[in-house]
């Protein structure tokens, strides 16, 4: 039921729950949060941004979940990328400054996985955000009408189970 609720919420959000910007920003921030291993300083900052900005929290949760699930597969690649980034001579001075600052060291930037994730997010943040926004708009304009015409969906929406779910969900038990 929990997963059904998640999927339901997800679809609902995609349909008309939030603006495309909120959805895209929530997912992107969540994905960034999920990609960074552990809870370094920047992860806490991202969490603050998700809560404080008017982004969609469900999508942030979904993005974080997706990132966590895929991170295991991406780890070797992130490690290499982080190592490459930390080896850049041009940034050596910046890293050295950070390395000598106890507060900045809370970001664990000198860890290859953390740095790899940061690089990925710095590079992918805007493309991901705009891509998702375009995707949401496209979903609402093209996929949603098509889906609603689908026989399977119509049968599902007309079923007793869906009706019961609609009634129960109004009480807000989950």
């Amino acid at each position, binding site marked *: 039921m929990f997963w059904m609720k998640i999927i339901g919420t997800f679809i609902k959000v995609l349909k008309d729950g939030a603006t495309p910007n909120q959805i895209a920003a929530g997912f992107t921030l969540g994905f960034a949060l999920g990609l960074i291993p552990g809870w370094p300083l920047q992860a806490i900052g991202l969490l603050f941004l998700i809560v404080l900005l008017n982004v969609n929290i469900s999508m942030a949760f979904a993005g974080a979940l997706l990132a966590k699930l895929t991170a295991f597969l991406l780890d070797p690649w992130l490690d290499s990328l982080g190592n490459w980034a930390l080896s850049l001579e041009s940034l050596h001075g910046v890293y*050295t400054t950070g390395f000598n600052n*106890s507060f900045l060291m809370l970001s664990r930037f000198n860890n*290859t996985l953390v740095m790899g994730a940061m690089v990925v997010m710095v590079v992918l943040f805007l493309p991901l955000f705009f891509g998702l926004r375009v995707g949401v708009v496209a979903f609402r304009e093209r996929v949603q009408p098509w889906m609603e015409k689908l026989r399977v969906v119509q049968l599902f929406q007309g079923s007793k189970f869906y009706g019961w779910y609609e009634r129960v969900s109004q009480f807000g038990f989950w």
Partner: protein
Amino acid sequence: MLRKSALIVLAVVLLLGGGIYWLGASGMVEALAERGLTRLFKSDVRIDDLGVSLLKMQGDMRGLNIARAQGGPPVVNSGPAIFRLEGMPLFAGKLVIDEMSLKNLALAPKGPKEELPDPKAAKSAPEAKDRQDPPEDTTKKWKESARTLGGKLPAFNPALLAGETGVSEDLLRGEPASLKAYDEAARIAKERKEGFQAEVGKARLSERARKLKADSATLKTVNYKNPKEAQAAVATLQSLSKDLKTLQSDAEQLQTQGSQGLQEAQTAFQTAEELRKKDLEEVRGLIALKGMDKKEIGRVLFGRAVLSRFDEVMGYIAQGRSVLGRVEQKDPPPKRGMGRTILFPLTSPVLPGFLVRKAALSGALIGETGETDFLYDANLQGLTTSPTLYGKPTTFQANLRKEANGKAWKVDALMDYRAKPLDEVTITGTGMSLGEVKLAPAGKSGPLPASFRSPNANMTMALRLEQDVLAAKMRLEAKDLVFRFEEGEKASTTLAKELKSFFSGIQALSLEASLRGPMDHLDFDVSTDLDDKFSQRLRDMAGKKMKDAQERARAKVHAVTEAKRAQALKIVNEGRETLQKGAETIRNEIKSAQSELSARLADSKTSVKEDLKQDLKDKAKKLLKK
């Protein structure tokens, strides 16, 4: 709805987290302090109460309790301690205290009293193996050296006198080395004589000579005109000549053997004679008593007391080294799958995990019996778990005083364990009380039956230990000396009586001591203003006694060795006579046989000549007749 819920949850988490952090800052600092102090002192450290204000970065602490690793009274702080923190290192889990004021800190630096071990006791005592020495090799080497730094004690019993003068103990016990040598010479002479006699008997030289003579005599009646008889006689003569040569050869060989044996016995006797001379020279060595040299007096009388003071300071240094001078631990390698940690150059000094930059301490020094010994005020700088990271040595200055009588100590110490461990300690004491200082040579436990006290003494000690190389000096000025002399067996010796007589009038003492060199080759020197006087006194006293002892020893050596010498000489001479007589007898008998044989040979030659002459005459006559 969801946003509201999330915001509420986050607010609660932040409030709780912040509150926990705010409240937990004290706990965190307390944990860091306990961990740092535990690493430093290698023993349990407990802090009863610690509060930190993160806004002011200040804190206060009560109830610091540091247990002693080796047992004994703990270091206890019952008073308040106020400190100022550095904030940034806390992010890295480090505790850096800029300044600290710690009052009512009860220190018990001495712990259980440990005497310098006596060398013999240290070897025999089973618990010596189990004794827990501080981990540093330096301490062990120091203990070993302290055992062997002894000054030599002049005394009048054979064993000590032997050690003092180089005269062998055997000699003084009436067993001079020459005694055994004479025995050896006598044994060799006897063995060789008996061996010679046995060989002579075995070779039957006399019998063979007599037989040769008799056989030669039988040829007197030979008729050389009879060719057969003459031929047989010639053959016999040739055989006898051969026997004679063999006999002469055997006799010569035996004589050579006998001479060699005799030579061996004589050489052994000569060795014994030389040893006897040496024994007598050793006895003469009694006159020059090295232990009576004034350079030795200080070490003999005050050596142990001085070393005990050095030992005490060395104990503190060992504690310091075991606490502060350890090898620093490296961070464990990162776990697998957690990425790699890349290190960058450090542009600012890295702070150690625990550091007290400056601490003002005050309190009481607890004595061995548990009561307050001294009150003190001290300053400590650079107390840290990692001197290498901090980059500065730890320094300590303390003023100690006894309020009752105004006696005071001043201590300055530097402990630099960044590379090679270096310790420097200077201690100055004024108006201090010297309690029961036993007179005893260094490394030995009180064979002298006396001790002294001084209620008013000044002492300065400067000690520098770099790795294992020690340079230490001590100066002591003691006034109002009160000597105490033991009663009993020890006190009845000549030296004890002389000590009593000498020190009874002494009221002041000035002493200087130095101890320098690598730990296994320490050069220890103690000199006092009494050395000259005491040395002279001992010489005066010992002069006659020593001469008497020398005479007695010489007489003893003479008496003991003379009998043996005579005995050995007699046996050697007997051997010589036996050899000479035996050889002479054999020589005579062989000579007699040789004469007889020569006579027979001459007879045979004459007869043969006459026979030939007669034969020629007869032949000539026959020819003339024809």
